[in-house]
């Protein structure tokens, strides 16, 4: 009985995987939002979603705070959207045949403001991630104005055209600077990390290219390789109060090598197909997820917590 199942189910599965790529096309909308102008940015989003869908994309990933711009300061309450707002409804309506991950300030019922991304799919809001790690140092001041999220949850991509489901996780910019966040999502089976970002360029000393671009190059490649998953990094471009956002949006494959064509700091849409077969190959070559010792992590975490509780 068991043998029979293997023969009828498993063998054709492998054959199909080798001959029929099971993937989807991501469009990375590397744009320059207008600071504090939600109405103008919303129209731009709707245009881009339409354009990307027409070009064959299954999901459009926008940068962090793509509806509002980044250095908002006291503008935060003015640009905030509630999940039942007209703007969110219009985006949902535009996402019947294509999915989109959009950045915005999301206001809660108790007047907290999150730096959030909303995943639209099938004409509705399918997932929300509120940024957990709000940078408040150097040029960043997010904790003054924003409330932190408290969870990292994976979600299904409803990628029309793909035969099997894809598991995704969203990390907003600074979230990715905390490996624990990436590890938590990986543990939930994430195959594609979607990383909307508003990363300001800084550091121009020779040998480092642009310092921040260098950091993200290392991080996106490292996480992709260590978690044998795709990293879809969408950064914004443009300037706010003299601070440049450097773009460089990219898709890194599950072997740690960038697969999309490199882009600079111009407004553009990066299209890239993500393949289940590439995930499979990487996970055969490097079965790191299979070998991950969650029992050890959990036991050690428990021990650390107990010791802390015991003083």
């Amino acid at each position, binding site marked *: 009985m068991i043998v029979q199942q293997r023969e009828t189910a498993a063998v054709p599965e492998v054959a199909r995987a080798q001959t029929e790529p099971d993937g989807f096309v991501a469009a990375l909308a590397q744009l320059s939002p207008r600071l504090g102008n939600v109405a103008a940015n919303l129209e731009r989003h709707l245009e881009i979603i339409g354009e990307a869908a027409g070009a064959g994309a299954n999901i459009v990933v926008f940068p962090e705070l793509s509806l509002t711009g980044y250095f908002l*300061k*006291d*503008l935060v309450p003015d640009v905030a959207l509630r999940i039942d707002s007209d703007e969110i409804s219009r985006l949902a309506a535009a996402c019947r045949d294509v999915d989109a991950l959009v950045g915005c300030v999301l206001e809660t019922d108790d007047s907290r403001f999150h730096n959030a991304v909303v995943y639209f799919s099938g004409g509705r809001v399918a997932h929300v991630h509120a940024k957990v790690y709000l940078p408040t140092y150097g040029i960043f001041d997010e904790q003054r104005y924003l409330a932190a999220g408290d969870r990292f949850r994976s979600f299904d991509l409803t990628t029309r055209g793909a035969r099997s489901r894809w598991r995704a996780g969203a990390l907003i910019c600074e979230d990715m600077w905390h490996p624990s966040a990436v590890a938590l999502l990986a543990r939930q089976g994430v195959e594609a990390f979607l990383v909307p970002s508003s990363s300001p360029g800084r550091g121009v000393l020779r040998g480092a290219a642009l310092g921040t671009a260098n950091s993200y190059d290392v991080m996106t490649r490292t996480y992709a390789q260590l978690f044998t998953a795709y990293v879809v990094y969408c950064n914004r471009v443009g*300037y706010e109060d003299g601070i440049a956002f450097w773009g460089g949006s990219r898709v890194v494959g599950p072997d740690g090598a960038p697969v999309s064509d490199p882009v*600079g700091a111009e407004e553009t849409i990066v299209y890239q197909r993500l393949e289940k077969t590439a995930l499979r190959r990487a996970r055969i070559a490097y079965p790191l997820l299979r070998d991950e010792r969650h029992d050890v992590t959990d036991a050690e975490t428990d021990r650390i917590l107990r010791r802390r509780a015991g003083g």
Partner: protein
Amino acid sequence: MSPTPRPIASSVDALEVDAAVVEELLCGFIRDEVHKVGFESVVVGASGGVDSSLVVALACRALGPEHVYPVNMPYRTSSVESEEDARAVCAQYGIEPAIEGITEQIDAYFARHADAGVTRRGNKMARERMTILYDLSVEHRSLVLGTSNKTELLLGYGTLFGDMASALNPIGDLYKMQVYAMGRALGLPERVLTKAPSADLWVGQSDEEELGLRYAIVDVVLFRLIDERRSRAEVVAMGFDADLVDDVVRRVRASQYKRRPPVIAKVSERTIDRDFRYPRDWGL
């Protein structure tokens, strides 16, 4: 165990920038910040010095020379070479600076204040020049580009509401030696790159003499203190003269007021720049 020698620690090599990256950042900055407020052009005071020459070059590359209005504003004691150098830089981009002498109005004012020393005269000239740039910015429907570098801004070596004023400053985050490096990378005329830096407010004025500091050293001290967040003791341990480091630290602190908007006395619930905080590029 003695520490491993690190010759680069006190060397200006530590400040070496990737010129292509900086050019892209600064040209993009000029283009973006000018265009998004609905302007196409800029006005720049072109003294013939390396700072303003670099700004002219960057603006021409960013906006096209037809959108750049350089203005040379000599006083009767200004050196002839300064105007020649300003012309030479502009000529590289096929434009000519407007010449707006300031001798008449400066002399008319100081005829009533004959006892004024060089500081007052220098400040007055710097502010006179800035009022001209802002006036011409209306005529040309342009923004005024600033030409103060990071070294001057941090040391407070500039005139408040004079040369320190501007709508946009593309080079305010570059130390003086980095300005030279960028000037070389962009092919500024050799004399602009090799003559002694001077505000040219009086005959024979020299930045380094007036400051009592050499840019090649003070830049590295500032870089270690500010950019790398090293303590005074760490910087001294890197081989810099303790008195020099103390002098730099003192100057930075003493000139903080020059880098901030005027202080507003708080009386209301919401005060500009204290608890009324909006980005400058609000809605752009």
